[in-house]
């Protein structure tokens, strides 16, 4: 029913609304999706702010003819690429969870959630390994240390977001297990998938800005 065509009688207000009143679309129920989307926008702004720092400071150093990465620091490409691949797999599984719950298939929803979390934990382990082999020293003196702090801040913030995505997914998995979500209402599953996807997209941005351009 088109919202603008709704009449007073449609909502059973029993004649107490004047005829001039046309009703708008009723309040949208997907508040969790809405709130999650706003939260993602806010987080993205903060993250882009950090990346803005990185781009500006790197540009200034490169323009002066110096090397941006601190002395002795090396960012290999293999690990970041595999991290990206792992997250790409997790995108498939997290949306598999949404698809499953749409079909009232709770078992495969939980399987999809479990696989997503496994991929995410693998991603965190890969990030820890990458930080280890990068050889960056947070307490190095001078500009080297400052640049390392910036790189760690960007990678660390994304890790925190990944952990938040895991917590969100696990919470929604428990809700699904408790029978709260079904094909009629799968708002929480959808919201967690959106948050997960945003985390992966931000990794893509970071992958290019930090790992590729170095």
């Amino acid at each position, binding site marked *: 029913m088109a919202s603008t065509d709704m009449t007073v009688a449609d*909502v059973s*207000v*029993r004649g*107490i609304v004047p005829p001039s*009143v046309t009703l708008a679309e009723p309040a949208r129920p997907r*508040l969790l999706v809405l*709130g999650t989307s*706003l939260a993602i926008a806010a987080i993205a702004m903060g993250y882009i702010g950090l990346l803005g*720092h990185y781009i500006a400071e790197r*540009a200034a150093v490169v323009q002066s003819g110096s090397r941006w990465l601190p002395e002795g620091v090396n960012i290999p490409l293999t690990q970041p690429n595999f991290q990206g691949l792992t997250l790409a797999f997790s995108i498939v599984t997290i949306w598999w969870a949404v698809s499953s719950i749409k079909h009232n298939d709770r078992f495969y929803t939980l399987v999809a959630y479990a696989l997503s979390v496994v991929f995410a934990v693998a991603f965190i382990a890969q990030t820890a390994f990458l930080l280890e082999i990068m050889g960056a020293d947070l307490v190095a003196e001078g500009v080297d240390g400052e640049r390392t702090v910036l790189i760690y801040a960007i990678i660390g913030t994304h890790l925190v977001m990944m952990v938040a995505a895991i917590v969100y997914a696990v919470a929604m998995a428990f809700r699904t297990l408790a029978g709260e979500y079904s094909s009629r209402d799968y708002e929480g599953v959808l919201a967690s998938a959106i948050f997960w996807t945003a985390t992966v997209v931000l990794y893509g941005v970071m992958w290019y800005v930090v790992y590729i351009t170095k």
Partner: protein
Amino acid sequence: MAESAVTVRGRTAANFACVPVRATPGPTDKLDTIHGSRNMALTQTRPQTHEPTSVAARGPSGILEVTDHKEVGRLFIGAGALFALAGVIVSVVAALESADLASFSVAKDADEYTQIWSMGRDLLLFGGIVPLLVGLAVYLVPLQIGSPTLVFARGAAAAFWIWLLGSGLLITSYLMNGGPGGGRRDFVILWAASLAMMIGGIVWALLAVATTILGARTQGMTLERVPLTTWSFFVFSLVGLFSLPILMAELLLAYMRLRYGHLGAPDSESLVGVLNGATIAPAAYWVGVPVLGMAADIIATHTGVAPRFHKMLMGTIGFFGILTFFPDLVGFGSVRTLDLDNGLMVVGLLVMSLPVLATLAMVGDSIRLGKLSASAPLLGALVSGLLLLAATAASVLAQVEPIMGFLDRLFPDQIDMTNTLILNGTTFHEGVRALASGAALVAVAAAVNHWGIKIWGRQPAQSAGSAAVLATAGGAALWGVAEIAAGIQDKAMYPSASSDTSGALGLWGVLAMAGTAVMAVGLVALVASIAGAGFGKRAGTGPQGWSGSTLEWATSSPPPLGNFVGPPVVGSAYPLLDGELAYANAPAGPVDQADETETEES
């Protein structure tokens, strides 16, 4: 069929769901029309208006369990008022030192002066003004859009406690020789962490407000019909949601650089500069966004005339919000040293006062058409709008330098830059911030007096409200003008012990100190007003207060748990004025049956 406002078909007002009982005088004809001759919402027995889960009823420990948006709003307002007062008192001390930097009377040295100055600024903005506005938003928005609750109400309650904990830690960090200019690295680090915590709490609360406005409006309440106060809080929330995380990213970097020894603890200028993105124009005007919406609604109620240009007012408020967001639009990658020479920023600041002027002009239409009655809210609404206009107009002065610089690049050797007015880096920005902060605080004082009866069930004293409005406005104006004048005379924004404060600069310093002191008096009156309404004896069942035309005035004061007797259905932006209000699920009862009989007969 014509009935009086308080007696309908032999029943008294107290028997009905939405029949107002007025405790204070105000324009009455509108509500008479709705509940009398149109007789629309009289479908249900009036519920008890006192909330069964009030904090007072549960005792002091119950305060930790609050999840009702009204209680969370009250907590934000009460705590915010106290922190604002503390912030202004600290600013008085900073102004006292700033008046004569040749000799320190309270602070031992320039670093300690920086700590005091910075503490005053942090407490006033993120401890006082923003939480006060957030508290009003948390309380009023669900009522104005017909929602029974705030979306993520428990999240908003958690946000309050996070913010409060952060505020406590912030004060602790300063007291333990931390903060910008502090000598103990651990507590300087704590300053960055606690400020991020405060801002995080605020962001969370803003998220709840914005989601509520987007997703929990009642039937008929389209986004273009939301009251102007709610609309301004929506713009305020969105700008806050998108700009405050950037500030948190700055604080994260400062935290890590301090933690790993890449930023010296006494490096006060770079630490103070972390907040530039929120305290220097145009971002400083962010707190002015709700001023416009609240002023429009308050003036409409107190003149009895709803704004004729509702959508245009929404446009001007939205445009003003976008302009306050300019630093973040142009600031990415500028390492947060605000690029005040940026062309987009210059244009934005030049036109900053236009939406304020347009809003005031359209609101003035209500004043022209309506009946003016002297009241603290009306006075506060007018004065806050004028203060904001003064603040935005002043920023034009700061654009002389970048414009002349641009012309100098176009026409070399023809522009004499030595005589150009250079205000960036001076106390000019302090003056603008004082005016914008003053506008927000005066608007809060007006709102507390206007919606006080709705918030606490008692009408705050008019005398205290008027005193709060006048003293806060007068103090802010004096403080702002003195700082702007000192800035024009090249007084540095971050003065040190070697700064010259003799002659006229000393005079401006004394005037700035007097301004902050008067402002402190105003905030004492505001706190007294809130305390009087919050802790005073409640007289009987909820009176309505002012006869407003927006939805919050359709329920009792304070509203019951769930806010309304049923989901309201509205047909206009001013349903109580236009008579387009009903309740969708009102149960059948004697009055309904009578209504249906009449309908059939007709």
